[in-house]
C-alpha cells in the first residue's frame, strides 16, 4: 500500500464527485412543496423609499407572498448583526447603524434588497417582482472613501456623522514621532488597495424549511454553519438552537465571501416558517456582483523613518477603509486586528503607529476576502520597503536582509500587539531567489530589451497571521464569538473512523487532508477514515473555515480528540492484556505492552469498547468516541518570499507575468499537493488583484463592473507557471506545528507583482503605481514619461 499518511500527496478524494458533476450543492436540493424566492434589489446607490405598492405583484400568477422590510419589522425582526466591535481612539464604541434584512426607509447601495416575492416557480417570482411599484427618491450617493470623508458629504446613515464607523489606532505614537525626528531618511508613499469582488464559482443559495413541529432547517452556501445558526437564530429570527439546523453541503468556493450571515438566509428561513413550505433562493451571477461582500478597498498613507545605514526606525501609517453601506459580519476586524497588527511584517521596526478610519459609502458591504487585512498590510509594507530602496539607493534585497527579524530572535514581540512564535525569513528569501534565478535577471532584462520589451523583477518577503486566537484575546479585541475549533472522533466497533469537524471544506480538500491526519495518527488505512463537516445536526459545534485556520485549529482539535481516544484505548488495552496502563504504548495502530510482543490492534480495542464482555466496566464507560474543543494559544504566522518577473510591451502597456516563484513557510504540511494547489490558487488571485481586478463604481455609487463582461477575472492565459516551494519552521504552540496555507498565495503575491512592474518601468521614473496595473495605466505612464526620457 502506498504511503498515505502525513506528508503524502494523496489525490483529493472529493474530486471524483466534483469532476463527475455529482457534487451536492444547495441548489441541487429540492423539497416537496418547495417554492422560490426572488429578491427585488435596489438599482440605485442611495434613495429614500417613498412607497412600495405590492398589489400587482401579489396578484400575479403563482405568487404566494410578497414581503417588504415592514413585514419583517412587524414580526419583530431587526437587523443583521455585526460580529466584531471596534472602539474609537477615545474609547467609545464604533457606530453600528441598523442593517435591515429588507430595506427600511432608504436603500444604501446598488443591490440592497427591497422586497421578496415568493412564488410556485422561479420564473413566476421573477415576473411578479417586475410588477412591484417602488417609488424611490434619489439621494446623492458616495462610492469613494475620500469623498465620503469630505466636509458636507451626504450621509449614508443619518445617525452616523461624517460617515465614520470608527476612528481607531494602535501603537506608540510618541515613540514613532521621536524616531521620525532623528531619522536620516523619511520615505513616504500613498497607496490604494483596490476593491475586489470575490466571484466564487458557485453563487450563493439558501433553502429554508420548517416542519410541523416548528423545527427549522436552513441549507446554505456557508463556510461556517454553526456561526450562521448562532447569528441568525439568536440575533435575527429568535429561533433557539435546538430548533434550528444549518447545513452547508458541498460549497463551490468562498474566499471569505461565504463566512457572513446574509439577508437571504434570514429571508428564506423566516418565510419558510410563515408559509410552512420550503423556500429556495439562488443568486443569479449578477446578484453575486452586487450582494456578496466585497474585499479590500483601502486608501493609505505610509511613512518609514530610516537611519543612515538603512535600518527601519519607525513606521507611521494612516488608512481609510471602506466598510460599504452596512457592517458585514466581521468587517470591522479586517482593517484593524487583521491589518494594522501585521504592519511589522518580517522586520524588526522598533516603533509602529497606525490609525485607521472606517468609512461608510453607498457601496456593497466590504468584509474579509482571501487574506483579509493581511494582503493590505503586506502590500503597503512591501511597496514601502521598495520605495525606501528606491529613495535611499540601498539594494532592495540587502535592505530586507538588514531589517529582517533574525531567526534566533523568536519568539518575537512586535510593537503592534502580536508575538510571532517562529519563522526564518532568510531561509525562504534565499530559496526563492535561487529558484527564481534572481542572479541571472540582468541578462534576461537585457535580452528582453533587445526584443523591445521591458522586463522587471520584484520580490516580497511577507508574513501573515492565521487562526485568530485565543478566544479570550479575540474577545478583548472586540470579537463577539469564540475562535476555537471542535472535533469529534468516532472509532466504530470494527475500527473504522468517522471524523466530525467544525471546519468546513469549500474547495480546500479537507476530506482528504483531515482523513490523512487521522489515519496517520491512529495507524489505520486511509480508506477507513471519513470526514463529516457542514451540518449542525451532526457536528457538536464549530467555528468554520476562514483565515487558513482549518488545519492549524481544526486539525489540532482532532489531535486533542485522538489523544483522548488513545488514552482510553490504553486503559482498555491494559485490561485486556493484564498490564499496567503506564506500560502500554500506542504505535502504528496498535497498543503494545512495552518490552513484550503483546499487542492489540485499534480494531480489537474498539470492538472490546462496544462489546464490553471483557471490559473494565467499573472504571470506564463503553464506546470509543471523543470530542475536543481546541482553543489556540496564539495566532500562527506563515510567511515567505514571492518573486515575480514580468515583461511589459511598451507599445500596448500589457504586462505579462513570465515567472513566479513562491517559497512559503506554512509549518508542517500534511498533503504537499493540496498545499501547492492552495498556493497556486492564491497566487492566481493575487496576480488578479495586482494586474486585472478592480470593482468600478461611478462617483455616485453606481456599479460599473457588474458582470464578467467588465470585471476582469484572471484567466489561465494571464498566469505563468507558478513554482511553489515550502521551507518550513514549525508552529511552536499547536500540536501539529502547522501554520496554514490557504491565504499565503493571495497575501505575498500582489506586492511582488507590483514591485516587478515598478522595476520594469524604472527608466520611466516610476516609483509606485496602484493596482490594478492595467495596460492602459502603464501605457499612460510610459506616454507621460517619454518626453522626459527623450530630453535626458
Amino acid at each position: 500500500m502506498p504511503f498515505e499518511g502525513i506528508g503524502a500527496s494523496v489525490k483529493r478524494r472529493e474530486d471524483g464527485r466534483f469532476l463527475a458533476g455529482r457534487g451536492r450543492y444547495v441548489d441541487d436540493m429540492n423539497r416537496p412543496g418547495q417554492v422560490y424566492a426572488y429578491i427585488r434589489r435596489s438599482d440605485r446607490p442611495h434613495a429614500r423609499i417613498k412607497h412600495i405598492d405590492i398589489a400587482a405583484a401579489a396578484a400575479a400568477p403563482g405568487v404566494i407572498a410578497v414581503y417588504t422590510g415592514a413585514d419583517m419589522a412587524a414580526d419583530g425582526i431587526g437587523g443583521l448583526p455585526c460580529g466584531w466591535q471596534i472602539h474609537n481612539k477615545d474609547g467609545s464604541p464604533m457606530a453600528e447603524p441598523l442593517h435591515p434584512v429588507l430595506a427600511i426607509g432608504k436603500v444604501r447601495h446598488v443591490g440592497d434588497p427591497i422586497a421578496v416575492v415568493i412564488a410556485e416557480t422561479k420564473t413566476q417570482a421573477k415576473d411578479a417582482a417586475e410588477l412591484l411599484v417602488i417609488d424611490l427618491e434619489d439621494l446623492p450617493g458616495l462610492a469613494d472613501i475620500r469623498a465620503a470623508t469630505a466636509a458636507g458629504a451626504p450621509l449614508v446613515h443619518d445617525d452616523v456623522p461624517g460617515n465614520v464607523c470608527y476612528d481607531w489606532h494602535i501603537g506608540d505614537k510618541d515613540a514613532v514621532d521621536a524616531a521620525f525626528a532623528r531619522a536620516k531618511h523619511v520615505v513616504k508613499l500613498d497607496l490604494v488597495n483596490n476593491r475586489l469582488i470575490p466571484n466564487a464559482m458557485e453563487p450563493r443559495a439558501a433553502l429554508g424549511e420548517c416542519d410541523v413541529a416548528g423545527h427549522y432547517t436552513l441549507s446554505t452556501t456557508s463556510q461556517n454553519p454553526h456561526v450562521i445558526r448562532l447569528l441568525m437564530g439568536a440575533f435575527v429570527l429568535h429561533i433557539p438552537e435546538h430548533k434550528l439546523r444549518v447545513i452547508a453541503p458541498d460549497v463551490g468556493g468562498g474566499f471569505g465571501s461565504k463566512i457572513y450571515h446574509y439577508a437571504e438566509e434570514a429571508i428564506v428561513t423566516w418565510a419558510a416558517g410563515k408559509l410552512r413550505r420550503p423556500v429556495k433562493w439562488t443568486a443569479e451571477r449578477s446578484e453575486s456582483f452586487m450582494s456578496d461582500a466585497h474585499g479590500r478597498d483601502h486608501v493609505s498613507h505610509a511613512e518609514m523613518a530610516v537611519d543612515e545605514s538603512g535600518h527601519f526606525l519607525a513606521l507611521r501609517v494612516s488608512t481609510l477603509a471602506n466598510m460599504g453601506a452596512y457592517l458585514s459580519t466581521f468587517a470591522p476586524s479586517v482593517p484593524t486586528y487583521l491589518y494594522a497588527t501585521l504592519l511589522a511584517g518580517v522586520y524588526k521596526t522598533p516603533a509602529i503607529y497606525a490609525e485607521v478610519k472606517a468609512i461608510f459609502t453607498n457601496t456593497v458591504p466590504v468584509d474579509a476576502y482571501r487574506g483579509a487585512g493581511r494582503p493590505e498590510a503586506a502590500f503597503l509594507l512591501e511597496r514601502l520597503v521598495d520605495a525606501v530602496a528606491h529613495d535611499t539607493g540601498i539594494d532592495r534585497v540587502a535592505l530586507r536582509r538588514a531589517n529582517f527579524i533574525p531567526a534566533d530572535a523568536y519568539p518575537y514581540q512586535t510593537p503592534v500587539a502580536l508575538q510571532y512564535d517562529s519563522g526564518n525569513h532568510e531561509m525562504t528569501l534565499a530559496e526563492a531567489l535561487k529558484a527564481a534565478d534572481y542572479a541571472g535577471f540582468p541578462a534576461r532584462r537585457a535580452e528582453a530589451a533587445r526584443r523591445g520589451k521591458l522586463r522587471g523583477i520584484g520580490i516580497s518577503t511577507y508574513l501573515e497571521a492565521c487562526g485568530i486566537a485565543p478566544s479570550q484575546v479575540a474577545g478583548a479585541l472586540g470579537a463577539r464569538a469564540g475562535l476555537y475549533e471542535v472535533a469529534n472522533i468516532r472509532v466504530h466497533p470494527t475500527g473504522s473512523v468517522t471524523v466530525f469537524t467544525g471546519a468546513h471544506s469549500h474547495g480546500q480538500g479537507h476530506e482528504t487532508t483531515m482523513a490523512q491526519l487521522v489515519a496517520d495518527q491512529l495507524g489505520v488505512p486511509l480508506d477507513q477514515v471519513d470526514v463529516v463537516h457542514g451540518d449542525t445536526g451532526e457536528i457538536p459545534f464549530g467555528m468554520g473555515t476562514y483565515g487558513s485556520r482549518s488545519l492549524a485549529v481544526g486539525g489540532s482539535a482532532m489531535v486533542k480528540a485522538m489523544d483522548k481516544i488513545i488514552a482510553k484505548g490504553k486503559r482498555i488495552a491494559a485490561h485486556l492484556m493484564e498490564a499496567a496502563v503506564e506500560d502500554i504504548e500506542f504505535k502504528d495502530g496498535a497498543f503494545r505492552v512495552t518490552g513484550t510482543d503483546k499487542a492489540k490492534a485499534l480494531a480489537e480495542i474498539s470492538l472490546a469498547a462496544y462489546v464490553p464482555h471483557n471490559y473494565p466496566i467499573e472504571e470506564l464507560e463503553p464506546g470509543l468516541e471523543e470530542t475536543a474543543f481546541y482553543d489556540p494559544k496564539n495566532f500562527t504566522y506563515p510567511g515567505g518570499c514571492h518573486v515575480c518577473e514580468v515583461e511589459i510591451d511598451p507599445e500596448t502597456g500589457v504586462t505579462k507575468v513570465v515567472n513566479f516563484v513562491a517559497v512559503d513557510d506554512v509549518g508542517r504540511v500534511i498533503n504537499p499537493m493540496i498545499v501547492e494547489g492552495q498556493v497556486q490558487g492564491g497566487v492566481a488571485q493575487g496576480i488578479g488583484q495586482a494586474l486585472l481586478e478592480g470593482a468600478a463604481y461611478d462617483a455616485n455609487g453606481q456599479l460599473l463592473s457588474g458582470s464578467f463582461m467588465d470585471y476582469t477575472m484572471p484567466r489561465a492565459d494571464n498566469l505563468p507557471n507558478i513554482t511553489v516551494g515550502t521551507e518550513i519552521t514549525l508552529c511552536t504552540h499547536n500540536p501539529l506545528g502547522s501554520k496554514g496555507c490557504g491565504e499565503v498565495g493571495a497575501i505575498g503575491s500582489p506586492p511582488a507583482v507590483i514591485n516587478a512592474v515598478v522595476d520594469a518601468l524604472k527608466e520611466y521614473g516610476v516609483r509606485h503605481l496602484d493596482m490594478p496595473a492595467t495596460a492602459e495605466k502603464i501605457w499612460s505612464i510610459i506616454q507621460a514619461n517619454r518626453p522626459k526620457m527623450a530630453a535626458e
Partner: protein
Amino acid sequence: MYDFAYQKPASVADAVKLLATGPEAKVIAGGQTFIPVLKQRLNKPSSVVDLAGLGLSGISVSGNTLTIGAMTTHATVARSAEVKKAIPGLAMLASWIGDNQVRHRGTIGGSLANNDPSACYPAAVLALGAVVKTNKRAIKADDFFQGMFTTALEPDEIITAVEFPLPVEKSAYEKFRQPASRYAMVGVFVAKGPAGVRVAVTGAGQNGVFRVPEMEAALAKSWSADAIAGVKVSPEGLNSDIHGSAAYRAHLITVMARRAVAAAG
C-alpha cells in the same frame, strides 16, 4: 428569460413569413449574443425564429468568390482548408472569436446581422469588400454597416450568405482584447485584394466598424508595417470606458494595424 413562441422553419420563405407575424418576432442564428440578452430579460420577443433548419451552412469557392453560408459557425470557418488558403486572415479572425463553445455555436450571419461594435467579423467583411447576400438582394459591405447594432437589413430580411471576392493577396487580423470580456477593444483587419487595400477597425468606434483611409493610402504605396507607423488616428468618435480611453484606443489602432500588416507578410 420571458416566454416566447419558438419556431424552426424549413425554408427561407417560411422564415420570412414567420418574421412578418409580429413586430416582436426575432431571428435566432447561433444565439451567442441573443440568448444572453434573453436571459437578462433585455429583450421580450413574441416569437423566436430559428434559422438552423434552412440549410444555410457551408463554405465553397467558385471562380473568384469564396462563399460562406450565413449559418456557418466560427469554428467551421476557422478550420476550413478553403478559407485558410484563400483568405488566411479570415480563418485567423474566426479562430479568435469568443471561446471554443461560442465558436461552435456562433455564426457569421448572426454576427453581421447583430453588428455589435466589438464584434470581429465586421472588420473582415468591410476590409475584404465582401457582399452580404440576403433573401432579397446583395448588399455591399460599404452599405451594410450603418452604426452600432444597426445594419441595412430590413425587418423581414435574412442573411443567407457572405461572398468574399478573390484573389486576396494579403490578409491578417490583430485584436487587442478587452481584458474582461475578451471582445475586441481594438480589432484591425488589413487586406489587399479585389477591393483594393483596406484597413477596417472594429471595437474602437462608437458607431461600429470603420476604415482608416490614411493607412490605406500609405499601404497602397508601400505594403509594410513601417509605412503606417506614423499614422495617428484621432480619438474623436472612439469609445471610452473603464477599460480604455479614446486616446488609448486610437493609439492601439496604429499598433494593431502595424502588427496585422507584419503578420500578413
